[in-house]
């Protein structure tokens, strides 16, 4: 039977069951329970846990573990994830795989402890140097988080990319009933070092960047074509389609259902992969849709770019406005959504694109 579990603990245990052999990290609220749980859990199982001297060291330790072909994990938030950007870029470049959990908290700089979605741009476009991409998963419930953890590793390993597990402070801190998956015992990854030079790796100065760029583009094209994940409802006849992910996505779902019940023709697209962005979801939308509305827990509206680009791609014959309702932090209340919607419908609030 499903049991009440705290999000961070459930995520950590799901990682254990997905076969994580190695964790390195540095505490930061609201992600710390992940590492606190693993500090106890991993050694019990004979697996490796390191509290590293910093987030920067942590991602490099993860890189070492990933290079040995095991499932490795790190988790952090806010500035801690910023410190991992160089490492994530290197992992991506070396086509090493791991999962980076970002329990997003609000704010620039030192930030706050509020739950938020303010790292969307960085996670979907990469905050390190270069033009790599990470697969970005964004669960909207603890159960979904738990179910996506194995997926996170499988996707990373299928494409040899880093998966960013982008969740929110509130999801990490809340409890709700959840059922844990079974244990899997992943084999050593084929490119993992064993000391015997079984996997031939090319030296960094011997690589052909031009050719690699082409391969990279092909890989990313494949991911875009194959791995878009989303949930949507009521989009076929919707006048307005909301787009929201994570906990706000779930909150918006409740509100749009209520609105439907009141006769308002609204629908919802809830991206589960933020990258690749679920452009395909837009193809199912009412051709006469009057607008898209993102609801995001950040200050500036970030996903609105991707929604506008998707809508430009899908609605080629006419202009469909894309609006943003950024609630800055926390979860958007019914009132916030309804007020914003009212302003949009009345024309009092202008579209972003």
């Amino acid at each position, binding site marked *: 039977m499903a049991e009440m579990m705290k999000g961070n603990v459930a995520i950590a245990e799901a990682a254990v069951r997905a076969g994580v052999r190695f964790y390195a990290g540095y505490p930061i609220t609201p992600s710390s329970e992940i590492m606190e749980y693993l500090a106890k859990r991993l050694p019990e199982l004979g697996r490796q846990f390191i509290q590293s001297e910093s987030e920067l060291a942590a991602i*490099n330790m993860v890189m*070492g573990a990933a290079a040995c072909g095991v499932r490795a994990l790190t988790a952090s938030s806010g500035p801690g994830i910023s410190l991992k950007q160089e490492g994530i870029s290197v992992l991506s470049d070396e086509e090493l795989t791991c999962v980076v959990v970002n329990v997003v908290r609000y704010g620039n700089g030192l930030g706050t402890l509020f739950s938020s979605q303010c790292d969307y741009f960085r996670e979907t476009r990469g905050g390190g140097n270069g033009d790599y991409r990470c697969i970005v998963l964004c669960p909207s419930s603890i159960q979904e988080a738990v179910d996506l953890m194995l997926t996170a590793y499988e996707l990373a390993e299928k494409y040899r990319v880093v998966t960013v597990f982008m969740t929110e402070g509130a999801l990490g801190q809340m409890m709700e009933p959840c059922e844990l998956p079974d244990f899997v015992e992943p084999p050593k990854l084929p490119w993992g*070092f064993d*000391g015997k030079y079984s996997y031939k*790796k090319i030296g960094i100065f011997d690589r052909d960047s031009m050719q690699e760029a082409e391969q990279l583009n092909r890989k990313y094209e494949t991911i875009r074509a194959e791995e878009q994940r989303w949930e949507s409802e009521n989009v076929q006849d919707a006048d307005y389609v909301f787009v929201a992910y994570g906990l706000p996505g779930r909150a918006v779902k409740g509100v749009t259902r209520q609105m439907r019940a009141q006769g308002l023709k609204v629908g919802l697209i809830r991206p589960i992969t933020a990258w690749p962005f679920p452009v395909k979801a837009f193809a199912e939308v009412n051709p006469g849709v009057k607008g898209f509305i993102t609801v995001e827990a950040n200050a500036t509206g970030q996903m609105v770019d991707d929604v506008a680009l998707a809508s430009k791609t899908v609605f080629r014959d006419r202009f469909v406005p894309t609006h943003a309702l950024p609630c800055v932090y926390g979860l958007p209340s019914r009132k916030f959504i309804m007020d914003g919607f009212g302003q949009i419908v009345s024309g009092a609030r202008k579209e972003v694109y």
Partner: protein
Amino acid sequence: MAVSRKVPAIIDRETSFCPGCGHGIVIRLIAECLEELGQDNNVIFPLGVGCSSLLGGGLVTDRLHCPHGRASAVATGMKRCEPDVTIVAYQGDGDAYSIGIAETLNAAYRNENITMIAINNTNFGMTGGQMSWTTMPGQKTTTSPKGRDCAVTGNPIRFPELVASQFDVAYAARGAVTSPKRIATVKKYIKNALAAQVNKEGYSTVEVLSPCPTNWGLDVLGAMKRIEEEIIPYYPLGEFKKREER
């Protein structure tokens, strides 16, 4: 009587170091020690960024180019996952002691069972000879154009001494590659360091004073002479933490 001397297979290739660069000598010594310890087919090299990166092509073993300065953290991740494989972090002085001091120090602090070999050529060789934390007082580099002013930049760091005196490590030593005798001693140190790891005694490190003729603006023999006359007096050679009898 003649003794056979054969370059170990894992390093029997051309490398792109400058003529007379100490990197070339040290990496051969490491390979020899690995061979002698039966570890040459059981080794991973996390490589620093610097002229050490040039090893990427020359070294036929598992190896990873780590972000600049972080090889000891990467090594830690590797060792924890492959505890029976010998892990050799191969780094320059800039890599290990400047940008990487936190990760380098912390591996020693944790007494992580890895070996870190640092090539100390008193500058950032690869990027054109900038000042490093081991640059000698008064030494002219591209970022200390009037000679290193230690009143502003601090005095050159002595890493093996630091870890030997402050942390609980298995082995720490410093050698130089200026003469056949010194080279033989360095080899002994490296072998001690690797043996400590194989025997799971904990962290081991060897710093090697090494010429960078290109950036020093000296010919190869002149560079060796500089090490003998100027550098060794500041950086004493020897073992600062010897292996304990077990």
